[in-house]
C-alpha cells in the first residue's frame, strides 16, 4: 500500500519530483487491423502504439493552466499517433491526417461527444476539438474500426504519460500533499496520496489492483 519511499535531497531547489511505475492493464486493447471487405485501407497498417497510462496530480484549489499548450494527435499508417494523451482541461487538440485515405475521428464518450467528419491529408488547419471537461474520452475513426485512442482531460497543470513499461516522472512540482492519479481506461483508475518535498524525489507505487488506496 505504501506509495512514498522518499528520495535524496537536492540542495537549493524549491520543487520536487515524483517518479514511479503504474501497473498497466494486461489486456489486448486494439483490434486486428485487417478489413473484412475491401475499400477502406489502401496502404500499410502500422503497429498500434503500446498501451500506457496517464498520470497526474490533484489537490484542492489546483486547476488546469489558464492557457494550456496546444496538442496534436496524428493519424498515420491507419493508427493514432499515441494510444493515450493527457491534456489539461481547456486544451485544444488538433487531429492531422497523414494518410492518403480519409479519416473521421469521433467520440461518443460522455462529456466529450464530437465528430470531426471526413477530412484528408493536408487539411489546413487540421480539424481540432476543445476539451473543456475533465474525464476520459475514447476516440475512434468511423472508417477504420481498429483505430482507437484515449484522451484524458485532467484538472491539473501536472500531468504526464507513462512509458510502455508503466514508468513515469513528474518534475518541478511545488511541495505539498497531492492525490496522484493513474488511469489507463474507465476501469483502471488508481489513486494514491503522495507528499512532495522541495529538492527531493518521491517515488510512488500503486496498488496492484485499481481500487482506491491512500498512503501517508
Amino acid at each position: 500500500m505504501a506509495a512514498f519511499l522518499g528520495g535524496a535531497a537536492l540542495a537549493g531547489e524549491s520543487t520536487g519530483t515524483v517518479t514511479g511505475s503504474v501497473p498497466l492493464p494486461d489486456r489486448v486493447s486494439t483490434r486486428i487491423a485487417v478489413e473484412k471487405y475491401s475499400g477502406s485501407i489502401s496502404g500499410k497498417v502500422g503497429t498500434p502504439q503500446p498501451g500506457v497510462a496517464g498520470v497526474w496530480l490533484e489537490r484542492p484549489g489546483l486547476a488546469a493552466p489558464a492557457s494550456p499548450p496546444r496538442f496534436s494527435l496524428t493519424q498515420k499508417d491507419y493508427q493514432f499517433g499515441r494510444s493515450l494523451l493527457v491534456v489539461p482541461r481547456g486544451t485544444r487538440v488538433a487531429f492531422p491526417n497523414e494518410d492518403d485515405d480519409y479519416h473521421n475521428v469521433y467520440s461518443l464518450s460522455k462529456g466529450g461527444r464530437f465528430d470531426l467528419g471526413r477530412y484528408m491529408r493536408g487539411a489546413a488547419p487540421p480539424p481540432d476539438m476543445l476539451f473543456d471537461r475533465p474525464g476520459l474520452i475514447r476516440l475512434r475513426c468511423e472508417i477504420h474500426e481498429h483505430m482507437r485512442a484515449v484522451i484524458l482531460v485532467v484538472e491539473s497543470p501536472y500531468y504526464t504519460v507513462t512509458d510502455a513499461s508503466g514508468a513515469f516522472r513528474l518534475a518541478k512540482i511545488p511541495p505539498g500533499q497531492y492525490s496522484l492519479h493513474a488511469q489507463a481506461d474507465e476501469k483502471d483508475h488508481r489513486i494514491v496520496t503522495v507528499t512532495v518535498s522541495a529538492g527531493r524525489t518521491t517515488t510512488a507505487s500503486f496498488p496492484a489492483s485499481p481500487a482506491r488506496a491512500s498512503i501517508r
Partner: protein
Amino acid sequence: MNHLSLALLIGVGLVSAARTSAQGLGAWSSTDGFYRLEMMPSVQTTFWAGDSPHPALVDAPDDVFLAPRLQLETSAALGSHLFLHANARWDRGFDTGNEPDGEVRVDELFARWRFFEDERLSLQVGKFPTVFGAWVAQHDFFDDPFLLPPLAYSQVIGIQSRDATAMTPQAMADRADGSAPAFANLSKQNWSSIIWGPSYASGLALSGSTSRWDYAFEVKNAALSSHSDAWSPQGEVFSRPTVSARAGFRPNAAWAFGLSGSHGNYLNEAVHDLDQTTLGLDSRWAHHHWMISGEVIATRFETASAGHLDALAWHLQARYKLAPGLWLAARGGQLLCNSSNGPAGTPVRWSPDVWRVELALGWHLSPNILLKLDYSLTRTNGTFPAGEHLLGLGFGWRL
C-alpha cells in the same frame, strides 16, 4: 455440425466474449502478438411493419414481423499475412422471415493470405461476399445507413433459378396477365434478384489496393442472382462457375469510382447452361459530414426460348451526420426490365418496373449501440401486386 451444436457454440461464444469484455475487447493475443483472436458478438434486431407482400427480400408472412439476429464474428490473425474470419448467425432466415422458427448458419468463412505487408495483393478462399459492386463492402448492419439493401441487391425479379419451365414464354405471359400467380405472391425463395444480397457464394478471390486503385477477381460456385441455398460448397461446386471482377479508382480521398463485371451460369439445372452477365458502375463522394454514392447495374439473363431478359437498376443515396452519432439518409432508385418474347412473338413483361424511395435515421447511443429507423415506399408497375409501405426499426448492439 447440426444446428443445435452450432447454436450452442454461438451461445458459448456470446457469453464468453461478453465476460471477456469486462477485461478487454473479447480479444486474445500471444505475448509476441503473433497469434491473435477476436470474438465480436452482436445483436441486430429489426421490427418490420408494412404491406404484404413485403418489398425487397423481406419474406415475412404477416404485416408485422420481428426479426432478431444473433451474430458471432470470429477473426484470427497469424502474423501479418494470414487472416481467418467466420461469421455465424442465428435468425429467422437469411431473407427475413423465410425461417420463422429460426435457423443457424455460417454465412462467412474464409482464409486470406496477404502476400505483402500492405494491401497490394491477397488471396482469399472460402465463403465470402462478392467483390462485385460497392454496396457489399458496407452491408454490415453498423455500416449501412439503411435497413434494406438497394434495389439491385434485394428486389425479386421474374427469374427462376431452379425451374426452367417457369421461364418459358407461356409461363411468363401467364404471370404477366394474371392467369398465373405473380411471383411476388409466391415464396421469394423460388425467384432471383439481380444480386442476392451480399452473395456469400463460395470460391476464391485475388484482390488488392494501392493508394489510388482497388482491384479484385473472384471465381465462385453461384451466379450473383443465386439464392442463398446455392452458396455453400456442395455438389458440383465449380462445374459452371461464375467469374466476377471489380476495378476501383480513387483520384483522391473524396472521390471513388468502380467498374464491376460478372458472368456465370444462373440456372441450377444440369441440363441447361444459361448465363447471367452483369455490369456495374459505382461512384462515391464524401466530405466532412456528407457521403453521397450511387450505382448503376445492368444484367442480362439468357433463356432457352424467351430471348434475353435484361434488367437495369440504379440508386442514389446520401447520408448527412446531423450531430455526433446521429445521421439522416435518403435513397431513391429504379429497377427497369425489358420485355421478353411472348408465346406468339409478342412482347411480354417478364418482370415489373419498380421504383423505391427510402428515408432512414440512425442514432449511435454509443459506439456499440445503434438504433435505425427506415421507411421505404416501393411502387411496382403493371399487374404484379406488391406491398408499398414498409417501416423498419432496427436495434444493434456489438461488443
